[in-house]
């Protein structure tokens, strides 16, 4: 099946600043793709480009076989949910939802029918005549969704749709949005900077950094098989240790003149490395455990901080060889100030090996 939305080699700069570089991406029909990235990574610019509010400097946008790169937004028939909703303050809930249908000159009773159909979908029956400033933030958010969906758009674009809600409301609204999108089966692009939100709503997640696409894949792929240091560190918690490739494919850590023989820890290499290459080992807290002292390939250190987070307890270990590691363990495993040893648990979460940029050694 050909992809529904195809972005090819998109470039965009504002003045001197490059916002997007050489970005290509495909989205299947009915898929929910999340654009994830830190602020300034270009995700909102990408979404606005797809919506038609920004023109790419180069590259094409094709939807359902039709190129729309230079079509004005009003001709694209995409629905958009804005970060601050952008509801029309002078219109009622009903009039907001009907706006897109009126633009398309849909007959009156058809508009009425469609509005009556959409409001229950977003739990807003009975709110038809309310002004938008008379309803709560969560309700405004759902009006924005209903308004975007009313004209039956080909594609739904959501720009940080939950960022304006308080945390307790955010989770519930997230569920409601996801359910409504699934029910309709519409193809959607959802922008967020929160990893948890991205993993919850996205069939696939596209991770952006400094205008480049770092990795696209299912949440599991991003978490378990990150393709770069950035992905590994942005998605979930991770600590990193510098090391050198050993002959047996493991990574030699802490082996230098001053501190004597180091340890050899296993890892999955992303890329091919030769023995002696300077690398970096990325470790998930679950991929490490606290051990009794002096076990074979263990790194020794002191517990600097202990944080209880319900599902696990995180210990921040300051290593004797320098550097810090975050380890997930049982609540009673250790205490702050205790001397401990850390060993890898590759069977739970294997460490990943990335190349180290020159000059970044320790």
């Amino acid at each position, binding site marked *: 099946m050909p992809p529904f939305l195809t972005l090819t080699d998109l470039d965009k700069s504002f003045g001197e600043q490059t916002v997007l570089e050489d970005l290509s991406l495909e989205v299947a029909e009915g898929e929910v793709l999340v654009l994830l990235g830190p602020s300034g990574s270009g995700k909102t610019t990408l979404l606005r480009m797809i*919506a*038609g*509010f920004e023109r790419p400097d180069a590259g094409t946008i094709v939807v359902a076989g039709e190129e729309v790169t230079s079509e*004005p*937004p*009003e*001709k*694209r*028939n*995409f*629905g*958009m949910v*804005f*970060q*601050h909703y*952008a*509801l*029309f*303050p*002078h219109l009622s809930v009903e009039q907001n939802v009907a*706006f*897109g249908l009126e*633009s*398309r000159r849909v007959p009156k009773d058809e508009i009425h029918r469609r509005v009556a159909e959409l409001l229950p979908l977003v739990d807003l029956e009975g709110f038809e005549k309310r002004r938008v400033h008379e309803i709560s933030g969560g309700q405004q958010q759902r009006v924005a969704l209903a*308004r*975007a969906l*009313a*004209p039956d758009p080909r594609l739904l*674009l959501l720009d940080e749709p939950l960022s304006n809600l308080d945390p307790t409301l955010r989770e519930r609204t997230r569920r409601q949005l996801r359910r409504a999108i699934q029910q309709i089966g519409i193809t959607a692009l959802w922008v967020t900077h929160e990893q948890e939100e991205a993993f919850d709503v996205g069939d696939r997640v596209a991770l952006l950094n400094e205008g480049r696409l770092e990795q696209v894949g299912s949440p599991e792929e991003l978490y378990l098989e990150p393709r770069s240091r950035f992905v590994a560190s942005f998605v979930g918690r991770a600590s990193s240790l510098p090391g050198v490739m050993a002959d047996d494919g493991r990574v030699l850590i802490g082996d230098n003149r001053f501190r004597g023989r180091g340890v050899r820890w296993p890892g999955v290499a992303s890329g091919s490395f030769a023995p002696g290459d300077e690398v970096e080992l990325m470790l998930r807290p679950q991929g490490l455990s606290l051990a009794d002292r002096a076990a074979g390939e263990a790194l020794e250190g002191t517990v600097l901080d202990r944080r209880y987070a319900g599902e696990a307890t995180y210990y921040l270990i300051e290593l004797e060889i320098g550097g810090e590691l975050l380890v997930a363990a049982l609540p009673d495993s250790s205490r702050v100030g205790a001397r401990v040893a850390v060993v890898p648990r590759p069977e739970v979460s294997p460490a990943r090996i990335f190349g180290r940029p020159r000059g970044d050694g320790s």
Partner: protein
Amino acid sequence: MRPEARRIAGYGVAALLTWLVGYPLLITLMEALGLPRGLSLEHFAEFARRPDEWQALWRSLWISAASVALAGAVGIPLAFVFARTEFPGRRILGALVALPVALPPLVGVIAFLFLYGESGFVSRGLQSLLGLEQAPWRLSGPAAILLVHAYSMYVYFYLFTRAGLARLDVAMLEASASLGAGRVATLFRVTLPLLTPALVGASLLTFMTSLASFSAPYIFGGGFRVMTTQIVASKLNGELSMAQVETVTLAILAFLGLWAMRRVDPGRSVVVGGTRGVAPSRRVLRRPLVKAGAATLGWGLALLLLLPHLTLLLISFVPPGTWTVEALPPVLDTSNYESLISTPERLRPVVNSVWMAIAATVGAVVLGLAAARLSLKLRGRLGGALETLLSIPWAVPGTVFAISLATAFSVNAPAMGRVVLVGTPWILPLAYLVRSLPLTGRSSLAGLRQLDPAVEEASASLGAGRWRTWRRVTLPLLRPAVAAGASLAFITALGDFVTSIVLYTYDTRPISIEILSSLRLQETGVAAVYGVLLMAVSATAFLVWGREERI
């Protein structure tokens, strides 16, 4: 709109504004310098040689300085009373005392004349009370001018001080008290220093308004000439070159004032460090005697301030020739109003003023909105230029504009962008339009700045084209701001006197000119009817403005 098209539109509007706002001033400057015949400072030298010119200049400056002091002396305490104490009727009086700012200056001036003038209520009352042969005083000269200025310009101090006090963080006053400062020490060491930017802003505004003031010096000045009246006198005497030099001089003073105002931003500086504090609460007066005292003072003051306008209303009901030596008018009826409606010659100025004000307002709204929109969309140097062009007429005294327009549009040279408009019905609406531009432009800018750009994008993403987005989304959201600007523009144009007196013709004479000629003909009742008319329309528009502003 595509960026290229928008840029072209931006240059087009900038060119139009330059032609209307900047070009007449430039031509006046060039002609004052003897161009195009040859550059010479001859006219300026002549200006410098004449002692009466120096005198007018000096008088303009000291009258303005004294007006600042007097307006501050009335406005600042008034603001403290209304901001800090609670007494019955405070809210409505608080709004009423701001009213004089919306009334055409000429109306205030003639109201004063009817109240305190030689044959006004107060002087007649005193005369009959004391059994005097003559009126106890003559309302003329600098004292009369200052009285009117203080009376109409205290509003600036009142409004600026109240705004400043409303934004003052109560925590600062509490901090001062907790550090051992008493009420007086807190006032002088905390409150007033924090209000300084607002007070400086009000002072400059008052100074500039006073510098540009024309009605009061014209009616009360007699031989006491300030720059504005000197300019008009030179023009009427046919000394156009001298009028131009005087105009240039006054314009330079005004631009200096504008430059100073730009350096003080009264809006921002009251709150130090950007904390949003809680304004001090009003002191509820508990002791009955104090309460009654404050209420009496408040009401008394408001009555005093509104008395001239009540007088005007009363005079409008006095039939011609019935009130001679009595202390109070013996007969009251509606004959003046009837004659206004039944006499075409008397109705004519009303019709003139209304159509010219409507035309000017529509033009100023369209042009102001377009320039504001383009200025915000284009940003950069062109956007900044558009914004500056919009604000220039605000700083330039009306007399200066009148002379400039009279200079620029009395010559037929289409290639130079000059056509003859003086003497045609179009010069006055054009002058009103230019003078109203800052009002409509500023309110459009304010409205557009509050507009969330995402709202227009939302409309586009819902399939609405540019026109539909403009009509269904942008315009409805801008309506309050545009209505506010338009109502102020309409008031200004309807009551204009200062540009009209230079540019009117008999056929296009506006209300203000007719008031003046009625006064000359001793038809005080008719003059009062016109004044009441202007007052009623202005007050209504002011209330519309006030309501829309609060949305």
